[in-house]
Structure formats: structure tokens, C-alpha cells
């Protein structure tokens, strides 16, 4: 079994940090008839998961699997139709935004496409400082510190996102997410929009930061091999449900669910050539 990347330095490792119980989310399609309401779409059906402190938890699924919906619920950017979420022992669901400070401070998110997740009209300085400003925390020299931590020059602070390459933009997004010193980081396909030659840089950077800061990581991807590189636990999603979960190496070596097997077989690899 491969070694863990460093020793997680989170306090009380193993204790649950994120707990979701029986999450469901039903969307209504816009109505097409005056008499009947729009069709219901079950984006998520009865999903439960527990992410321990310091754990790297992967969520794998294709488009329409419900992984994006689950992510939004975990980050309290959307409300579940049923079920509960607790973060650090405190309930998240059913609270108004003003009572979610503990979550906003401690759970940050990195999106797939750094071009669209960074406001094109804001300078890097303001983008990185935004979580601090929003939470009323002191900014001080934190921006320079964060830019340095993600390997960007201090001069980057005065420029706009479009002046950077994809990989650099994702570094900016990571710096921003780390600004309020969160306990957990949620990464939504953070390398899918990047060139192969920079993908490794960003994955290495994430691994380093997660190690150094003792972060809990929820890593979402459509690619099981990327999740296998990053995470120790994986949940495979299909049609709004978790069809299989467990230690990633076990799932990889002996997938129990037919969908997981299909997924593994479908991913083209370079291994057959060597």
C-alpha cells in the first residue's frame, strides 16, 4: 500500500469533521404547462458520508451524477430537500447565512475553471483578500504571504486574472481559499481545465499545502486515477447516489459495483503501451 503523504497534523485526526446524513435534493424543472408543475429532478438521493479530520476524501462521478449538487450542499450554497449536514459538530442545514460564519471561516472551495471563478474586474489582491474582507478579518500582509505560499510573485497582486495562465489562475484561487486559514478545503475538479504539463504542479501544490496546514480535503473529480493519487478514501457517485465508497486502493483494485468497474475500464490509460 502506498504511503500517506506526510502525517496529517490536524488536531484529533480521525474524528469526523463533515457529516452528511440522508441528503436529498429535488429540483423542479420550469413548468411547461399552466396546470401541471414542472417535472421533478432528483439530483441527489439519500446520500450520507463522513469525512474525518485530516482525511483526503475523493468524490468521483460523471456529469449528472450529483457530485456538484452534493458539493454545493456541503458548502451551504444550496439547501437540501431532506437530510442534515454538520460541520465540526455544528449543524449547517437550516441556518440563515448570518449564522454560517463558522462554516465560511473553516470551509473554503476551489472551483474547476479558474477563469470563471475569479471575477474578471477585480485585482488579484482583492480576490485573494475577499474571504478575509467578507468575514471582517484583518488583511495585513496576508495577501503577499499567500501568493508566496502558492508560488506566485508578490507583483501578481496588482494584476487582473486574465493576465495569468490557467495554472497561475488556479494558484490564485487556491491562495484565496486558504486566506481565512480554513480547516477544510473543497476542490471541485481543480485540475480538469488545466494543461497536462501544469496539472502536476497544481496537484503537488495542493498536496503540499494540505500536508503543511493539516487540512481536510474533499476532492471532486470525474477521473478515478487522479483521486487515487490525491485521496485515501473515495465515494463513487452515479445517478444521485453513492454506489460505492471505501479506501481508494481497495476500490481501485477490486471495484464492487458494476458502475465503478465500467468507469475504471472506460478511462483510457497509457499503461497498456509500456
Amino acid at each position, binding site marked *: 500500500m502506498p504511503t500517506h503523504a506526510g502525517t496529517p497534523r490536524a488536531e484529533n485526526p480521525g474524528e469526523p469533521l463533515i457529516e452528511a446524513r440522508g441528503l436529498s435534493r429535488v429540483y423542479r424543472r420550469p413548468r411547461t404547462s399552466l396546470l401541471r408543475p414542472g417535472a421533478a429532478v432528483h439530483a441527489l438521493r439519500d446520500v450520507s458520508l463522513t469525512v474525518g479530520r485530516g482525511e483526503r476524501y475523493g468524490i468521483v462521478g460523471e456529469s449528472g451524477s450529483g457530485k456538484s449538487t452534493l458539493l454545493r450542499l456541503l458548502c451551504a450554497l444550496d439547501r437540501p430537500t431532506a437530510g442534515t449536514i454538520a460541520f465540526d459538530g455544528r449543524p449547517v442545514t437550516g441556518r440563515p447565512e448570518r449564522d454560517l460564519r463558522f462554516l465560511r471561516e473553516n470551509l473554503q472551495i476551489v472551483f474547476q475553471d479558474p477563469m470563471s471563478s475569479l471575477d474578471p474586474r477585480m485585482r488579484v489582491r482583492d480576490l485573494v483578500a475577499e474571504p478575509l474582507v467578507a468575514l471582517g478579518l484583518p488583511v495585513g500582509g496576508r495577501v503577499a504571504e499567500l501568493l508566496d505560499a502558492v508560488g506566485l510573485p508578490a507583483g501578481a497582486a496588482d494584476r487582473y486574472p486574465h493576465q495569468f495562465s490557467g495554472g497561475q489562475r488556479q494558484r490564485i484561487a487556491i491562495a484565496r481559499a486558504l486566506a481565512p486559514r480554513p480547516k477544510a478545503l473543497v476542490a471541485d475538479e481543480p485540475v480538469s481545465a488545466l494543461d497536462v504539463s501544469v496539472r*502536476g504542479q497544481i496537484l503537488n501544490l495542493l498536496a503540499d499545502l494540505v500536508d503543511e496546514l493539516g487540512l481536510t480535503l474533499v476532492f471532486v473529480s470525474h477521473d478515478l486515477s487522479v483521486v487515487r493519487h490525491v485521496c485515501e478514501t473515495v465515494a463513487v457517485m452515479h445517478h444521485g447516489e453513492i454506489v460505492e465508497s471505501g479506501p481508494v486502493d481497495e476500490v481501485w483494485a477490486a471495484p464492487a459495483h458494476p458502475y465503478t468497474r465500467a468507469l475504471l475500464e472506460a478511462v483510457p490509460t497509457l499503461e497498456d503501451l509500456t
Partner: protein
Amino acid sequence: MLTVDGLTVDGLGVRAGDTELVREVSFSIGPGERVGLIGESGSGKSLTALSLMGLLPEGVTATGRATLAGRDLIGVPESRLKRLRGRDLSMVFQEPMTALNPLMRVGAQVAEVMTLHGRGRREARARAVELLERVRLPEPEQLARAYPHQLSGGQRQRVMLAIALANEPALLICDEPTTALDVTVQKRMLDLIAEVAPALLFITHDLAVVAAVCERVLVMYGGRVVESGPIREVFTRPRHRYTEGLLAASRLTPRGTRLPTISGSVPAAGHFPGGCVFGNRCPHADALCETVPALTGEGHAHACRHPAG
């Protein structure tokens, strides 16, 4: 060397104003051959394809020579290209949703490309159903009457493939045809493309995808072909340092180990170094690399002064 059949590209260049985007690209594709064109963003791979189709955006021009079955593709008037496009060579794009007309039934869209090139209406309609069947769409009769939004992404891309194959082209160009698709759908699509393509130029950033479809590969970086050859050889014994780095970066090592990376990032168009285009990111670069290395070697060729292996 004049291949009568198939595609021959000789010294292709693409420029926008003073910026050279593609330089000295030469290759050929014989009938039945499947060739991959690999590159990251800014490598010039899509521009290479678009220049062959005569579909370069305004202000971007192509130079050099390219022939398909003896017919010139570059520097010929639009009227002549119009007759070639969709008949002798055709292309499948990345986004199947935007490439299809949302207000037209898919069967009619497949038939249209045939009537455009002089086939009878009734014959075209019958053949459209055959084509939908050939790209393995279920119940092609019914499906021909569907609108694009009623199909899944994978089905739409199959419709695009049916349109591309409608006039039995001599060459099929695919630009990232499966990038927008789910992995489980991708595999079947790739198998299908490999099976039906008369001769294939397959453009992608994904090395594993190329390996699944193609026999030969061209690696582009900074607007140049830096390495080319049979896929197995190039992928198992890469010579150019860029190919080497790209392959290393593509293999995900076990958890807890560091991934090999290529330092820096891909420069913006027009900002690649003179001499070897990879010079500013290459760990082996020295003074020798300040002059442009030629693409040399029979079969497996590379343009590197300090090749690996």
C-alpha cells in the same frame, strides 16, 4: 515525395499579423491511417486543423502547401474550398451542442450536407438514416426526427460524426471530439471513430486518448512539431524533452509521491523563445538550443539538440 492519395502537408505556417502561430509543419496521412496531433493550449494544433479546412478566423492566414488526393487546400479561393469541405474532408468539433442547428431535426441536418453537395433529396434522406445507424445510434428512424436538445451529449456527437461521414470524405479531422463527454461515453465514441474514419487526423491534449485511437502521432508545442513517429515508439521512448516531460506528467504516481512536472507554464502565443520553442522550460537547454533544431529522423523524428534515450 508526392502521395497521390491521402493528405500531404508541407511547410505549413499560420500567422496573425506579425505573430507566427504555426511554423514549418509537415506531415502526411495515407488512406486508412489514423494520426494523432497532440498539444496543449497554444500549441497551434487546432489552427493546423482549421487551416486545412480553410476555416481560419479573420486576420489569420496560412502559408505553405497542403494537398488532399492531389487537390490544393491552402491558398485556393473560398468557392473551391466550399466544394471540398464536407465532401472530401470534414471535421468534428468539440462542442456538439453549438455545432448543430437547434431548430432542425437531426435527420434533416445529416441529409442537408448531402443535398448541398448535389445528392437528391429523397436519396439523401434515406441515406441519413443509414448513417445514423452506422454511428450506432439506437432506432435511427425515430432518432432522425428528434431535435438536438432531445439527445444526450454523446448522441449529439454521433450525429456530428454522421454528418462528417455523409459524403464519404477522404479525410476526417476530429478536434477534441470527446473532451466534453463523460468517460464512459468517450470510450465507445473513440472506438467508433477509429472504426469508421477513412483517414483520420485526431487532435487532442490527452495522450491516453490518442493512444486509444491512433497509430502515429505528432507532438506539437509552440506552433512546431517537436516529435513525430509511431505512437508506441514515441510514448515508450520519447526523444524530445517536451514529449518526455509531458509523458511523465501524464502518469499519475502513487499517493504520497510527488508528480513529475514541467517547470513554468505554456507561454502565450507569440511569446515562445526563439530557437528551440521549449528552451525556456527545458532542464537540458544550453547555448546550442538558441538555434532552431530541425525535425530529423526517419519514422521516429524529433527536433531536439539533447534528445532523451
